[in-house]
């Protein structure tokens, strides 16, 4: 058992929250619901793709660097990855939208 992958995911999540704070990003109730739905769908679709890819030997995991909790052929961290990283993407998108609307306002 090793916390390397889990540790990196925690850093990614904390980094995303820091981005939200620095750029004053917040989500409306409707957007919060949209975040949950979109991340759930991303986890389902991409874990399915990942499971298939592992079964077809497209890639494999260095399990010695992971917690050792498996769901099928997927390490727990990989499943969490498909929520944490897209969430970072959504925050980036919100930042880009905010910057864009600020620029439009200035114009």
């Amino acid at each position, binding site marked *: 058992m090793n916390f390397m992958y889990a540790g*990196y995911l925690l850093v990614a999540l904390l980094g995303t929250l820091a981005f939200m704070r620095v750029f004053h990003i917040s989500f409306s109730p*409707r957007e919060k619901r949209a975040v949950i739905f979109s*991340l759930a769908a991303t986890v389902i679709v991409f874990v399915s793709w990942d499971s298939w890819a592992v079964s077809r030997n497209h890639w494999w995991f260095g399990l010695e660097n992971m917690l050792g909790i498996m769901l099928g052929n997927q390490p727990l961290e990989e499943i969490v990855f498909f929520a944490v990283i897209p969430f970072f993407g*959504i925050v980036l998108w919100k930042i880009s939208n905010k910057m864009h609307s600020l620029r439009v306002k200035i114009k």
Partner: protein
Amino acid sequence: MMEYTISTIIGFVIVLFLDRILLRTKIIGFSPRMVYTTVVFIVFQLFFDNYFTQQGLWSFNSAETLGVLVPFVPIENIFFGIEMLWFALILFSFFSRE
């Protein structure tokens, strides 16, 4: 048989289909906000993906890719990341619109 290559191409088509036809969110393209988001995401992805591959968190089967590495990660994996990003953004836009 380059299955990873083929599956990323199919994934790309599905993402475009979702954005343009099925959900009609129409956010994928060259608008400044999408370009900024994607470029920043790719910069982070290139750094961490390469680092994690070097650290042995995961490894790729070169028989299933084109063999183009950027610089240690197959180009297919970069597209996998972009498709994941776009998929999440399309659904986020779809569910958050009024």
